[in-house]
């Protein structure tokens, strides 16, 4: 038995050696010193913007050490939820990026864990549609960052072959889109767009263009049965499928491949896709962006919508004042900083005073010289403001099932009613 004990002790020692080796530079409560940490995803966009903010802040406040840690978005969600729900603040960052669709979930599920930012920035300076998702009871918790303003990216060469110009697509509705799509398919054999049946992003964009959402304004009551915009959106979705305009895909890489390999003529999505579109350099000059189509027959629907977008939040852990100050002086008020991130990474913020700067007026040769940033900024102003509420993804999973049923022939009103019933049971 002694031998076993000895072996066990040796192993424990080995363990201790391992852990001491790694924990020396992380040893616990360093938060009181002048260091803050930030969690964000996407190195080409959010992380770069944060790095530029760090540089901008550093010149005036050299004492604050800002550590930026890159994590995948799903990983951030898991880490935050596990830490916050177990009540353990150790290891949490000071600043975290959260997608707007999920913000209310976090703010309301962990009410004491977020630091209020009201008064550290002027909320009137930001696109109004970003304020509702980032606040609770009129108090601001998030500092709005990027816009998910959507547009319709189109292949001008394919359109030409079908006899259309970019002008024909400006401010159109989805009916016209389908009509054009059929012609394009005829002339070029190309599908109009890719769709993943698990991802109802297209539906979300359609209904937000009409100022409607899966939930009522209170952010809690499901708004599916009798939601006119949603109904038209589903009808349109099915029409697009029936017209055989869709190339089915099942993940992100196939989505990227769809347009990079020239298989589709349009990409209706958020402006953050621009770098991925430009990744295929051989397609330079063949693309343009037009305003997002509106819903046919829905008077509230405008030619502007949104997909995704996220904002910065400060957690209620030591260092929160420093973190709030850092955000306020960069993302919260610095016009020059917004010009920089726009020039360097093409990021479009939702800070309105920045839109007048010269960087926003530059043309992009990849898009035939179109001033796409200025166009997106103009569309951002028109995005209808809605409260995404608590349960966007829970309801979307329910809707995805009913969407399949509807496509296979179930009556639409019945499908939406069933979804409503399920949603009410789920989110009570």
């Amino acid at each position: 038995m002694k031998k076993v004990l000895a072996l066990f002790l040796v192993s424990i020692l080995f363990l201790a050696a391992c852990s001491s080796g790694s924990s020396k530079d992380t040893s616990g409560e360093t938060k009181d010193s002048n260091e803050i940490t930030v969690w964000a995803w996407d190195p080409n966009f959010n992380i770069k913007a944060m790095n530029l903010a760090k540089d901008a802040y550093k010149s005036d406040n050299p004492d604050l050490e800002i550590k930026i840690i890159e994590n995948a978005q799903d990983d951030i969600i898991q880490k935050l939820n596990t830490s916050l729900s177990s009540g353990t603040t150790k290891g949490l960052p000071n600043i975290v990026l959260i997608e707007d669709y999920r913000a209310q979930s976090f703010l309301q599920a962990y009410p004491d864990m977020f630091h209020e930012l009201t008064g550290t920035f002027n909320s009137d300076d930001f696109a109004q549609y970003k304020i509702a998702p980032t606040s609770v009871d009129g108090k601001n918790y998030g500092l709005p960052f990027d816009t998910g303003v959507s547009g319709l990216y189109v292949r001008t060469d394919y359109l030409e072959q079908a006899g259309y110009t970019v002008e024909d697509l400006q401010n159109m509705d989805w009916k016209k889109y389908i009509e054009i799509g059929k012609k394009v398919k005829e002339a070029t054999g190309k599908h109009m767009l890719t769709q993943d049946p698990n991802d109802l992003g297209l539906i979300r964009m359609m209904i937000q263009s009409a100022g409607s959402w899966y939930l009522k304004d209170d952010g809690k009551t499901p708004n599916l049965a009798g939601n006119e915009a949603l109904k038209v959106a589903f009808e349109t979705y099915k029409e697009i499928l029936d017209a055989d305009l869709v190339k089915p895909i099942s993940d992100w890489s196939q989505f990227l491949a769809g347009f990079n390999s020239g298989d589709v003529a349009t990409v209706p999505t958020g402006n953050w896709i621009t770098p991925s579109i430009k990744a295929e350099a051989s397609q330079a000059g063949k693309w343009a962006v037009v305003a997002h189509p509106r819903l046919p027959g829905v008077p509230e629907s405008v030619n502007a919508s949104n997909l995704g977008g996220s904002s910065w939040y400060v957690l209620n852990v030591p260092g929160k004042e420093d973190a709030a100050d850092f955000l306020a002086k960069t993302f919260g008020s610095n016009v020059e900083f917004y010009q920089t991130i726009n020039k360097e990474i093409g990021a479009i913020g939702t800070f309105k005073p920045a839109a007048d700067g010269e960087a926003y007026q530059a043309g992009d040769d990849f898009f035939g010289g179109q001033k796409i940033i200025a166009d997106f900024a103009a569309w951002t102003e028109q995005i209808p403001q809605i409260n995404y509420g608590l349960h966007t993804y829970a309801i979307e999973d329910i809707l995805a099932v009913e969407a399949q049923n509807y496509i296979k022939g179930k009556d639409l009103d019945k499908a939406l009613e069933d979804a409503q019933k399920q949603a009410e049971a789920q989110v009570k």
Partner: protein
Amino acid sequence: MITVKTKQNIQPMHSTRSLRMKNTAIGWSFIAIATVLICLFYFYPMVQALIMSMQSGTGTNLTFVGLDNYARLLQDPTFLTTVKNTVIYLIIQVPIMIILALFISVLLNDKTLKLKGVFRTAIFLPCVTSLVAYSVIFKYLFGQDGIINIFLLKLSIISEPIQWLTDPFWAKVAIIVAITWRWTGYNMIFYLSALQNIDHSIYEAAKMDGASPFQIFFKITIPLLKPIILFTSITSTIGTLQLFDEVMNITQGGPGNATITISQYIYNLSFKYTPDFGYAATVSYAIVIMIVIFSIFQFKVAGDKNA
């Protein structure tokens, strides 16, 4: 609880009372470390999860609701779908995989077979392949214009591409193929290691007596491997009932919940939706109950004497 009927106790033949006491003490000390650690890192959190399963609410706003969550479970159409899907995977996939793994191991256990190392390594490779690669690769293989469709079209087995991942039926088939592909080599390892522990002279003797390969397989190999067959079928059952990685990475449960599993629903309730850890814990305990039932069944089927 599961009961394993036991062989007669193994005790030293001329044991005095004190020796027996000593042996009992030694016996317990062999299992002590493991038991303590499992209690600490599994049972303690399991008890907490059980308490959590009687609470409901978002994030940290939990209230005690007693058995409400369990009642909700039985009326939750998504949960019922996940159970249905998971049981389909279990019933179809586990037997196929176990038989395939057993068959391959027996072929590989042939002393005179050449290139054994190459075959073994190739067949084992799928389960070391990283999940990220695995998901990208599988989505390509099963894509609408993926390799599998191209292959089937070339051979004129099908006339139109199969919507592997976006059709409810074919998506299930794709998941079953994916699990089998990934875990057959894994189960093979257990059989291979067990086959080494069988005394080769038994086979020699059987051959001398003129037994056919089939007779040897069914009359000698299978009975001798019974403990490991039981082990792999129980662990595969557990693995399938907790299936998450494949579905999460290949279909995300879609199209429209056609492939969603119980574990993925737990993940969604905890992380994808507004977190409801109480209800997620309830769903977890539903898995525990199902596994216990299946395991008791398997121990019973495996029979008494030599299991």
